[in-house]
């Protein structure tokens, strides 16, 4: 069935088509302007989204990494979180006092003196206790080793009871010996 449109209707449809084309053109212009101004209307779904997300995640990862370096200290006793001020304090290493450290190192440079410190790590000991623990050396040798440790400030003897005690530097020195052992063991495994 063929419908005959009147001339008047044809004219009206033609006008509407032109109006629609004009509106499309206007919309296209507005969209282009907004995109150029960065108002976010123009969205290109596709690779851009993935790239954007990747960029954001990369930035976040860098931030986290930097923050980790700043505020977390991983030591032999576990993880400690420091505030910025504390971190600076940890990083501030003292200068090495070569003569004093050399004296301490010299005192440590003997197997039995290290063993004695190891015994003292568990608490104060009388001479007889140490003799019992180290039967392979004579009393006079043991006594001279203890003198060296005392002179280096790694041990101290009570004057009344006579017990030998490990000092704070002594503990630090023995901990250092432990760490060296750990490194040596690791080296052997590798």
């Amino acid at each position: 069935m063929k419908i005959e449109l009147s001339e008047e209707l044809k004219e009206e449809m033609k006008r509407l088509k032109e109006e629609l084309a004009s509106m499309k053109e206007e919309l296209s212009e507005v969209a282009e302007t907004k995109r150029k101004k960065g108002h976010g209307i123009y969205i290109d779904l596709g690779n851009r989204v993935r790239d954007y997300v990747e960029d954001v995640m990369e930035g976040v990862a860098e931030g986290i990494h930097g923050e980790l370096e700043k505020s977390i200290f991983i030591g032999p006793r576990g993880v400690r979180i420091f505030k910025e001020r504390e971190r600076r304090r940890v990083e501030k290493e003292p200068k090495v006092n070569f003569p004093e450290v050399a004296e301490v190192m010299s005192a440590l440079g003997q197997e039995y003196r290290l063993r004695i410190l190891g015994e003292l790590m568990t608490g104060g000991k009388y001479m007889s206790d140490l003799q019992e623990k180290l039967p392979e050396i004579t009393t006079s040798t043991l006594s001279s080793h203890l003198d060296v440790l005392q002179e280096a400030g790694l041990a101290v003897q009570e004057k009344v009871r006579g017990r030998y005690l490990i000092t704070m530097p002594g503990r630090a020195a023995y901990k250092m010996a432990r760490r060296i052992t750990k490194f040596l063991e690791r080296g052997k495994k590798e």
Partner: protein
Amino acid sequence: MIWHEYQLGDTVSKTTEDTRLWESEKGIVEISKDALAIPIELDDEEKGYLFHGQGKLLLDTIVETEEGAIGKPVERELNKPFLMLADTEKTQQSLTKASEGDLTKMGYENKQEFMEEAHDLFNRFFKNGSTHSRHHVSKHRGFIFAFQNQTNKLDFLVANGPKIVYTAKDLVFVSNKNKVVLKSPDEVVCSDKGRSVIISKGKSVIIKK
């Protein structure tokens, strides 16, 4: 009773043997044979002695912490006159009257010279020392020692059982069983059964449990 009621006696004795005046787990005060002694009296009762001879003070001013021992023991030769307030019963047994020769051995020309020096120390302890002038001491059951240091000022040791207080020029040590406080030029340490606070010179505060 207040300090000024104490009197310095006028008889000079000497020790007949090496005598341990005070002893505890952490310290010893000894006086050797032939040391001179003058009694300190309160209402005609002996409450202590002023000694001059070769003596020795040992005191373990050491604090044991989890970070290691802190402090060094005190070992002092007591070759200047010093004073002791304590139960005198045991000391009396090892005393005999001193002769002019005994005084000469200690470097005094006569009794008067020794008495003058003894009064000087006695007065500094009992009368001039503002810290002590109003304190009651008559009922004490422990020991009080006053030693003259290098600068002729007085260092004090007060002990009663396990309780010890020692104050010297640059050291304060307070101990009662496991509770210890030590103040030295390098650090201040407070410790109580393994828990300790350590404040070191130029370093941070270490708190350990």
